[in-house]
């Protein structure tokens, strides 16, 4: 039944179609202490929290779509509505042609989910046991399960980890197994909710590579949520940024990079006091250490390439330590808001990095 409707929805059409989706939660407010608890039982003060308000977007088959926003922006709530776990307060959505909260179990055969903060693999058992169990749960035949496990073990480089109890794996190893487990039944769409949370840089990069690889190899569409703009930058072609339950930005990642992710902040520590204060066209000195050893700079990497700044710094003195950071997601969001400010000069603001004081400008 479901497969007919899947076929009807067309090959390259939207696999996710969301129109005016909203979710409000009733939260009982509780004051501190025992008397507060008592009062919450006797006369509960309910407040309404709008987790998601009027969300509309579409996602194409095979797409790698990023869904980012700070904690509490409504990302997970949206994912949970798209998997059919939560019923929306208002609005409509179809995923693979199905209404998630009405056809949850049917939909489950065609989608995979990874919630980065919660394990799905059975903790005391080797991952291979959970994979075989999932094979049964998704009603796959044993030969297919063996073939898929072989393929995923190779793609995720987890062949040597599968026989080890999950409790003995590192977080990075476990997360690779977690994502592999979600792909076992060859879903057409996989929803990754914060898959890189808590991972170190190397493990993060490895996860990103594998996700990109699986998207290309199996043509599985990936909806990725993260509060790390780096994940999106490395993986996605298109990004949706949400804040307070609303979409505040929706465009290609390349456009976001061009407009909002170009500002770099560099912190340097020199071995000796600089003979003269550091200065370079296009580079803002944010902070110069009172002792003269440390320096914090900001510049726009479109107009001032990173390597030129680094060369200049090395020429200025013996560098002991150096860090280069991208603007945080919070800064990017602030910049987007500033760019959209109605009484400012929108054109000009959108063209700049929008990072206000950090923006060096030509």
């Amino acid at each position, binding site marked *: 039944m479901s497969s007919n409707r899947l076929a009807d929805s067309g090959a390259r059409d939207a696999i996710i179609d969301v129109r005016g989706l909203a979710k409000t939660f009733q939260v009982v407010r509780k004051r501190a202490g025992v008397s507060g608890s008592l009062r919450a039982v006797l006369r509960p003060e309910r407040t309404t929290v709008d987790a998601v308000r009027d969300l509309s977007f579409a996602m194409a088959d095979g797409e790698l779509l990023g869904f980012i926003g700070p904690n509490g922006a409504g990302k997970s709530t949206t994912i949970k509505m798209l998997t059919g776990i*939560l019923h929306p307060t208002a609005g409509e959505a179809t995923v693979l042609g199905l209404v998630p909260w009405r056809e949850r179990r049917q939909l489950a055969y065609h989608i995979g989910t990874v919630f980065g903060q919660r394990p799905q693999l059975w903790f005391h058992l080797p991952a291979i046991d959970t994979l075989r169990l999932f094979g049964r749960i998704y009603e796959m035949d044993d030969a297919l399960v063996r073939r898929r496990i072989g393929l995923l073990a190779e793609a995720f480089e987890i062949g040597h980890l599968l026989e080890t109890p999950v409790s003995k794996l590192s977080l990075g190893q476990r997360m690779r197994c977690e994502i592999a487990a979600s792909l076992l039944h060859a879903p057409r769409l996989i929803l990754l909710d914060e898959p890189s949370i808590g991972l170190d840089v190397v493990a993060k990069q490895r996860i990103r590579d594998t996700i990109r690889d699986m998207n290309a190899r199996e043509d599985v569409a990936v909806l990725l949520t993260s509060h790390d703009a780096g994940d999106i930058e490395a993986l996605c072609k298109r990004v949706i940024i949400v804040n307070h339950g609303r979409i505040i930005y929706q465009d290609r990642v390349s456009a976001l990079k061009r407009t909002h992710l170009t500002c770099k902040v560099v912190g340097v520590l020199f071995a000796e006091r600089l003979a003269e204060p550091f200065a370079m066209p296009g580079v803002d000195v944010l902070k110069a250490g009172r002792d003269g050893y440390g320096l914090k700079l900001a510049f726009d990497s479109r107009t001032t390439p990173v390597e030129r700044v680094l060369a200049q710094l090395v020429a200025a003195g013996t560098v002991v330590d150096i860090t280069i950071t991208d603007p945080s997601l919070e800064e990017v969001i602030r910049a987007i808001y500033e760019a959209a400010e109605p009484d400012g000069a929108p054109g000009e603001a959108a063209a700049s990095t929008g990072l206000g004081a950090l923006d060096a400008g030509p």
Partner: protein
Amino acid sequence: MTAATRKYGSIFTAQLANGLTYPLDLLGRALSIVVFLWVFLHLWRSVYATDGSQAIAGLTLADTLWYLMLAETIVLSKPRISADIARSVRDGSVAYQLARPYNFVLYHFSVGLADAIVRAAMTALVGGALVWALVGPPPPASGWPLAAIAVLLGWLLDFSMSALIGLSAFVTEDTSAFDWIYSKAVLVLGGVLLPLDFLPEGLGSVARALPFAYTVWAPARVFVSPDPARFLALAGAQLAWLAVLALLLAAAWRWAIRRVAINGG
């Protein structure tokens, strides 16, 4: 074998393997029955001595002790489905459980049954050895299969009532108050403290008209007096209550799933 039995069967066997990971933990759990049985032995030995009769309501001292051994085993081994559901709502793992193509309640029943069987095997071994040493051999082995069936039905009945409480966690998160009431009802009206046969006539018939009796009293009673007529009557009552609770659970599920509020981001 249908896909459904394979599905829930696999969940059951995976949890069996999971449960056997820490045998020492299991043994420690099982040892708690020793304390209960020791207290019961002294209590009932003096009751029978004071009464001066061989049997009370048709049960000898040995029957009573074997009854209490199985009753305690059933209660000590059963997982609290309500607590499992409440925990999965609190820690958010319910999000995975709801995003898979299985029935949420049957998933918890499969896991719970595996837990119950692993723990009961160990507990019955410890408790059985003790009671055998104290009051003599168990009831005839020919009746054990009947008792095993009644134990399984009893657990399913308990899981159903517990799941009913557990589903309220979708809305309230906390189920401990209902849990407490339920466990006390099983303790007194279910026949954990003493065989329901010992209760005064009025209270006894009230208890036998309620579902709690069929979680513990029915299987333990079949175990000590395994005549087929008794088994059929009690197992029939178990099945009838299971049917009623299945309907209630289905209705509760439809109500709860629309209201689920999941913690976290």
